[in-house]
C-alpha cells in the first residue's frame, strides 16, 4: 500500500508490491493445500491401514486374510452400483430429453430446479424410505421373478421375506443417482447448437429424428461422463445401503435371496463403531480400496468431459 511508487519507477515497482505478493501467495497456498489434502487422504489411510497389510491372516476378521476379506466387498460394491447404473442411465437420458425438448419452457425450468433439489436430499432419507416403503413393495415382484424367471441365476431365489435384497438396494441406488446423472446430461442437451436442431427440423425430420441426428451425437460424451459420475456416487453410497441391504457376505449373483454380498462403504459404517485394533485397520484398508476405485472412475469421467470441451462443435 505504502509503496505505490511515483514517476518513472512505477512500472518496475508495481510488480513488487508486498500486498500483491502476499495475496498471490495466500491464494496459491490455498490451491496447493487442496493438493496436499488429497495426497493426505491417501497417505493417512495408507498409514492407518498398514498394520492390516502385515498382520497374520488369523487376526483379520473372518480369519482368511486381507484379500479374502475385501474381495467379496468389492464384488458387492461393483454389483450394486453397476445394476443401479444400468437402471438409472437410460431413464436419466429420457428424463433429460423430456425436460429439455418435450416439456413446455416454464415447466422445464421448474423441473430442472426440482431435479437439483432431489440431488440434495440426504442419503439417510433414501435409506429409511428404501427400508420402510420399497423393501416390502419388492417382495411380490421378487416372488414373481423367481417363479417365472427362476432359471436365470440372477433370480434363483429363494426370495427374501424382508425384501432387503441386492435387488432393492440397486433400485434405491438408482433412485438416488438419477438426479445427478440427469442434471449432467440435461446441461449438455441444453447446449446442443440450436442451428443444428433447426436445420434438421427444417429438412423435415420428426422430433425423434432431430434428437437422434442433432442432440444425441452432441450429448453422447455427456451421457458417458454423467453415468460415470453416477457410478462414482453409487460406489461410495453408504447409509442407504447400510440401512436397506441385509448382508451376509459371500459372492453371489443371486439378487433376490436373503444372502447378499455387502458393499465396502456400508460394511465400514456397520462395523466401524464396534471395532477395535486390527479390525479397524482392516476397515480402513477396505476404505482405501474404495477410494482407489472411485478415483479411477472419476478420472475417466473427467477425462471424457475434458475431451468434450476441447473438441465439441459448440460455439
Amino acid at each position, binding site marked *: 500500500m505504502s509503496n505505490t511508487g511515483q514517476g518513472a519507477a512505477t512500472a518496475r515497482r*508495481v510488480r513488487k508490491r508486498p500486498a500483491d505478493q502476499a495475496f498471490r501467495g*495466500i491464494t496459491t497456498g490455498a490451491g496447493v493445500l487442496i493438493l496436499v489434502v488429497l495426497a493426505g487422504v491417501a497417505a493417512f489411510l495408507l498409514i*492407518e491401514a498398514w498394520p492390516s497389510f502385515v498382520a497374520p491372516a488369523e487376526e483379520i476378521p473372518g480369519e482368511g486374510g486381507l484379500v479374502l476379506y475385501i474381495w467379496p466387498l468389492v464384488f458387492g460394491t461393483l454389483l450394486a452400483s453397476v445394476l443401479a447404473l444400468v437402471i438409472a442411465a437410460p431413464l436419466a437420458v429420457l428424463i433429460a430429453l423430456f425436460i429439455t425438448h418435450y416439456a413446455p419452457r416454464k415447466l422445464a425450468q421448474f423441473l430442472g430446479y426440482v431435479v437439483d433439489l432431489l440431488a*440434495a436430499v440426504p442419503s*439417510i432419507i433414501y435409506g429409511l*424410505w428404501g427400508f420402510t416403503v420399497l423393501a416390502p413393495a419388492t417382495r411380490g415382484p421378487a416372488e414373481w421373478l423367481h417363479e417365472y424367471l427362476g432359471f436365470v441365476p440372477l433370480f434363483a431365489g429363494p426370495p427374501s421375506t424382508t425384501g432387503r435384497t441386492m435387488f432393492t438396494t440397486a433400485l434405491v441406488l438408482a433412485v438416488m443417482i438419477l438426479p445427478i446423472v440427469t442434471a449432467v446430461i440435461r446441461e449438455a442437451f441444453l447446449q446442443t447448437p440450436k442451428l443444428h436442431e433447426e436445420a434438421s427440423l427444417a429438412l423435415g425430420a420428426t422430433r425423434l429424428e432431430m434428437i437422434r441426428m442433432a442432440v444425441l451425437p452432441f450429448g453422447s460424451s455427456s451421457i458417458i461422463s454423467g453415468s460415470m459420475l453416477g457410478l462414482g456416487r453409487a460406489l*461410495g453410497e*453408504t447409509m442407504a445401503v447400510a440401512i436397506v441391504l441385509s448382508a451376509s457376505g459371500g459372492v453371489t449373483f443371486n439378487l433376490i435371496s436373503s444372502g447378499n454380498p455387502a458393499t465396502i462403504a456400508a460394511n465400514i459404517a456397520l462395523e466401524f463403531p464396534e471395532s477395535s485394533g486390527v479390525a479397524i485397520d482392516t476397515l480402513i484398508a477396505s476404505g482405501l480400496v474404495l477410494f482407489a476405485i472411485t478415483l479411477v472412475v472419476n478420472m475417466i469421467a473427467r477425462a471424457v468431459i475434458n475431451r468434450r470441451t476441447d473438441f465439441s462443435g459448440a460455439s
Partner: protein
Amino acid sequence: MSTTTSPPTPTESVEPPNGTKSLVRGTLPRWASWGALGAAAVLAGLIVRLLGFGVTPFVLSTAVLYAIGISGWSRWVEGGRKATDRAFTALVASAFLLALTPLVSVVVTVISRGLDRFDGQFFTYSMRGVVGDGGGAYHAIMGTLITSGLATLMSVPIGLATAIYLVEYGHGRLSRAITFFVDVMTGIPSIVAGLFAYALFALVFGPGTVNGFAGAVALSVLMIPIVVRSSEEMLKIVPDDLREAAFALGTPKWKVIVRVVLPTAVAGISTGVTLAIARVVGETAPLLIATGATGSTNFNPFSGQMATLSVFSYYEYASPGVPVDPSLDRAWTAALTLMLIVMVLNLVARSISLLFAPKAGR
C-alpha cells in the same frame, strides 16, 4: 373434425395431377393424444377391474396401451416415421412419470411419518436419560449446526482463495493440476472422508480421538471442492471490462480482486456456498465415524463425541429402544427436520441469486 378415414381438407387442394396419390399425408386431429390417453385409461381401468389389481398395474397398462394405440393410429394415418415419433414421445413422458413416482413417494413418506413427533419437545429436549417415549433432538440439532458451521468456516476461505487463484493467477501446470484434482475430489466417497479425518486425528492426537472437530474436517474435505467449483464459475463471469477499468486507475491487483471482482460476484458465491452447506448438512457416514454419537448436549467440538441430526436419525432406527415405535418416530422426525433444513437452504440460495444478482445487460 372427422377423425381418420376421410382425407383432411388440405389434401384436396394439392391433389396431384395424375390423381393417383396424395402428396400430403394425413395428420391426426389436435386432440388425438389426449383422446388416446383417455381411451387407454378407460380400457386399462376395465382390464385391471376385471383382474382385480391395484393402482400400479393400472398406470403401467395405461402407459403401454397408450403407446401401442397412438402409434398404431398414427401409423395408419400419418405413416411410419410419425408413428415412431409419437411412440417415442409416449416413452419419454412415461419414463419421466416413472422416475417421479419414487421421488414423490420419498417426500410423502418422510412428511407423513415425520409429523408424528414434530412438536416442541422434539426441538427442546435432548436424549439424556430418556427411555422409551419422549425425548428430542436438541443435542443433535446443535451438533449439526456446530459441525456444519465449523466446516463452512474452514471450507469457504480455502475454497474461495483457490477459486481466486485459478481465475486470477493460475495459468500453468499447477492450476491445471488443481482443477483436475478438485474435480476428482468432488467424487470422494463421504465415508472415505470420514476415515481420513479419523486417521488424521488418530495419528495426531492418539488413537480413538472422536469429536465434533474431526467431523467438521471430514465435512470440509467434501465441501471444499463444491465451493471451489461454484466460486470459480462465478468469478469467471465477472466482465474483464471491470478489471481493466480498475487497473487503468492504477489500482493494485489484490485491491481489484477484493474491491471490484468479489463484490460483483458475491451473490453467486453466496448461492454456491449455501448449496454446498446444503450438500454436507445431511451427510451421515463421515460423522458416524469421526464425530460419534451421544445422548447429551455437547457444545464443545474439541472434546467428546457429539450427536448430529443425521447420525441421531440413523441410530434411532438402527438400535431402537424397547418399545420400538418412539425411536422410529424420532428417526423419521429427525429425517424430516433434515429435509426441511436442506429445502430451506436451497430456497435461500435461489433467493440470493435472484435478489442480488448484478443486472447483466444482454
